[in-house]
């Protein structure tokens, strides 16, 4: 059974709505964090804050545990190369989104500390 591009869109049209609130909430947090950061002078390449990357990596690693569970499964059933590709892709997505949220937020928090006279680290 082969799918056409139109068929794939038709399936996605029915697949996405149940997850739309979640997708929109994640997008809202992401856009808000980036927007607030950039309004206060945040630039992704200029700001360095290692804990944000570490937390993002941990969040990505946690995906290996909670994503199978969220699908009524468990890590032990992730067995084939496709399974692992799917799970790793999801984990990388979580790493990226978490970092894109935490990185500008860390800039805002550290910036406000500096503005209050704190010592830059």
């Amino acid at each position, binding site marked *: *059974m082969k799918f*056409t591009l139109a068929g794939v869109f038709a399936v*996605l049209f029915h*697949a996405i709505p149940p997850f739309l609130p979640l997708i929109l909430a994640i997008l809202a947090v992401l856009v808000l964090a980036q927007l607030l950061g950039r309004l206060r002078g945040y630039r992704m390449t200029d700001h360095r804050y290692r804990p944000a990357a570490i937390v993002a990596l941990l969040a990505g690693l946690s995906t290996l545990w909670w994503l199978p569970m969220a699908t*009524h499964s468990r890590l032990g*059933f992730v*067995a084939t190369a*496709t399974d692992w*590709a799917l799970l790793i892709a999801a984990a990388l997505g979580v790493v990226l989104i978490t970092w894109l949220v935490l990185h500008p937020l860390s800039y805002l928090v550290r910036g406000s500390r500096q503005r209050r006279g704190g010592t830059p680290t």
Partner: protein
Amino acid sequence: MSLIPRDPLRPDRRRLLKVGMAAALMPLSGLQANTVSTRARVVILGGGAAGMSMANRLATRLSGARITVVEPREQHYYQPGWTMIASGLWEAERTVRPNADFRPAGIDWLSQSAVGIDADARRISLGDGNTLDYDVLVVATGLQLDYDRIDGMSTDLIGSHGIGSVYAGHHAAARTSDAIDAWLASGGGQGLFTMPQTAIKCAGAPIKMTFTTQSRIKKVGNRDDFALDYFTASDDMFSQPWSNDFLKQRFDRDSITRHHRRHLSAIDPQARQAEFTGRDGQTETRDFDFIHVVPPMSAPDFVKASDLIAQEGAFAGEWLDTDIYTMQHNRYPEVFGIGDVIGAPINKTAASVKAQAPVVEANIAAFLEDRPLPARHNGYTSCPLITAIGRAMLVEFGYDNDMAFLPSFAFIDPRDESWAAWVLKEFMLQPAYYAMLEGRV
């Protein structure tokens, strides 16, 4: 220094994007089959998976035709989800949507039951006493559940006396889950799982129920305290040979005792006893704490009483007499069959309907234009065979080469138990099903 020129990248990228988009949209143009102008009266019996798909396809394909769907129900049920309900994973209402969500514009929808077919007169009798004449008939009635062929069995019993049955509807599936929960709470005992002597829809469901129940046992209790026995009227477990061997081995490994060539013939709910009859007519009575009943199935009575029913062969008296490749009736060329009602060695699944619908559409269009029938169904069917809650095998196969595998995705091996196949089952097959109803896949 790179040998690949970098400067022209921007214009080249644009050009590549254009070419890529054109290539991506090519399949779309392939779907634009020619419409057929006709004044034909097309009647579709049934508005389930097959009937609704055909209504949407023919409404687009036939210009000027009068298309009538005869379907008494106002709700559409995603039946492949009922095993998920009975396994305690989904809410029952997740499988229900109004038919109105999928009905195409420009057709007549008769909220009536069909009660008779006069194939020679090309006339349908309706439940309200009226009749409906047709030039082309699509029989998409689905099948009927013959619980009454099991002495003592009634759908009212599902959910009580340790009796479950996933087939009797979404509420019955939920009650089946409750019955399994009650059995698990009792801490042990005998579970029986049955497979009848007739062809059934979603032939993997009895096996899935066995495996998901085992998963629930392992989750809450000691597996050794629960005995699982599987009774099948067949010599085999499954139509696809490789999967059949796999299942036999897996049942044996998991200490699920197989009993072949025996079907459930009677049940005593009060005594919690089930009677099985072998091919030799010998009966055997077994006690149970939980039993999953799968009823015999057949074409609806009014189809069986009509001239359209198979007159000879393996499907005689039970199923629609259809050419399993063209989907055209073997004796009445203006009649086409699709879905569970047809007499075919496999194919009583929603996935089969997905493969059959474009064949029936193309062949009806050709029939109306007096052309040879161009399309051929390869018997494609699919079973997301759940082997535990959380993993499945995407078993897709067809008629040819001894039911050889026909995988849709190169990256999912039908011989592998995988999480990806499970995720497909849990999240993607229902959207694909709804797209199929709309005639869009």
